[in-house]
């Protein structure tokens, strides 16, 4: 039996238990999907208080809509979709943008002047840079647009496929790939800029 079928069976068993009134089964669903939900909320919403409220809101929606879940995707993907839409509504209400203009294209000035620069020119530099990397990277990821941050996280930290990310964000798979490409490119360029600024 493959993993997808196994997941569907587990999902189905859990959903049926919740619908029969077992709150412990719902607790299991929350624990199973909490990581994904937290990642999406933390990447799309900056305010801590709002994150807390949104997380609770997401799971109450999941509970209310559970009888309508048709098992066409994994339960976690469906929960991720509800989380993403809830965050999207939040951003709309707060009039915040999903993709910042600065992120939509490459940094032109940087690209023309330093087209041939690299993050490190030798192994020692690479070693030093790798040590500082997580701090710089964390900061630079935080500076990305909410959508880019989310896509990067879903693909590289949650190990979701393009198709699963497309289901969660309700974007075409090609668009997901394109945005991911741009996000990585912007991130690489910003890292170069940060590194070169620090070095000089």
């Amino acid at each position, binding site marked *: 039996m493959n993993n997808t079928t196994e997941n569907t069976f587990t999902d189905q068993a859990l959903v049926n238990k919740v619908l029969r*009134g077992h709150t412990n089964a719902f607790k299991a669903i929350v624990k199973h999907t909490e990581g994904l939900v937290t990642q999406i909320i933390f990447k799309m919403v900056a305010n801590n208080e709002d994150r807390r409220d949104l997380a609770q809101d997401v799971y109450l929606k999941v509970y209310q809509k559970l009888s309508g879940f048709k098992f066409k995707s994994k339960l976690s993907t469906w929960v991720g979709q509800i989380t993403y839409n809830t965050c999207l509504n939040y951003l709309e209400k707060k009039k915040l943008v999903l993709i910042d203009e600065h992120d939509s294209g490459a940094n032109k000035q940087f690209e023309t002047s330093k087209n041939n620069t690299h993050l490190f020119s030798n192994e020692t530099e690479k070693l030093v840079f790798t040590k500082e990397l997580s701090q710089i990277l964390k900061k630079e990821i935080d500076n990305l647009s909410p959508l880019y941050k989310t896509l990067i996280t879903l693909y590289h930290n949650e190990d979701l496929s393009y198709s699963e990310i497309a289901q969660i964000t309700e974007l075409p798979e090609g668009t997901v790939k394109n945005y991911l490409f741009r996000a990585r490119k912007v991130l690489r360029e910003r890292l170069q800029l940060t590194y070169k600024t620090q070095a000089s």
Partner: protein
Amino acid sequence: MINEHVTDMEIQLFIFEEEKCAIHVVEHIKHCPQCAIKAAEYNVLVEGIEQLEKPAFDFALADLVVEQLPQPQLRARFDSLFLYIIAFVVISFVATALYFFKDTRLNLAWKTSPASTGLIITTVACIGIFLLADLFRKYQRQMHAANFIE
């Protein structure tokens, strides 16, 4: 090998989906130091992202959510109570009507044939059952719509 450098998109494709990458791109990256460095940078970038600490809430989300869930057992109990109340009201009403219109009913019974009485009782019972069933079904649908479907 092509002499022109490959694009950023091709380098990313080489790293993340090498099987979909054109052979000339793979060959170029393998032989061009500049593009190889770019590819290495993307690798470092991705390794860095993968090693980042996962965010977490500073409270037990599962416990907090479960506390706020509506209690399904209470709802079921409320459903049963609602049905009992309806049944009690209907029975009381019928019993009161039968008691107060006892004489009229007896006179009517004398005058009506047993076949007609049977027919009337069956018809009233059938309509009553049908109306009650329909009412209950509507009530269930409304409860379902209000609580489970947005």
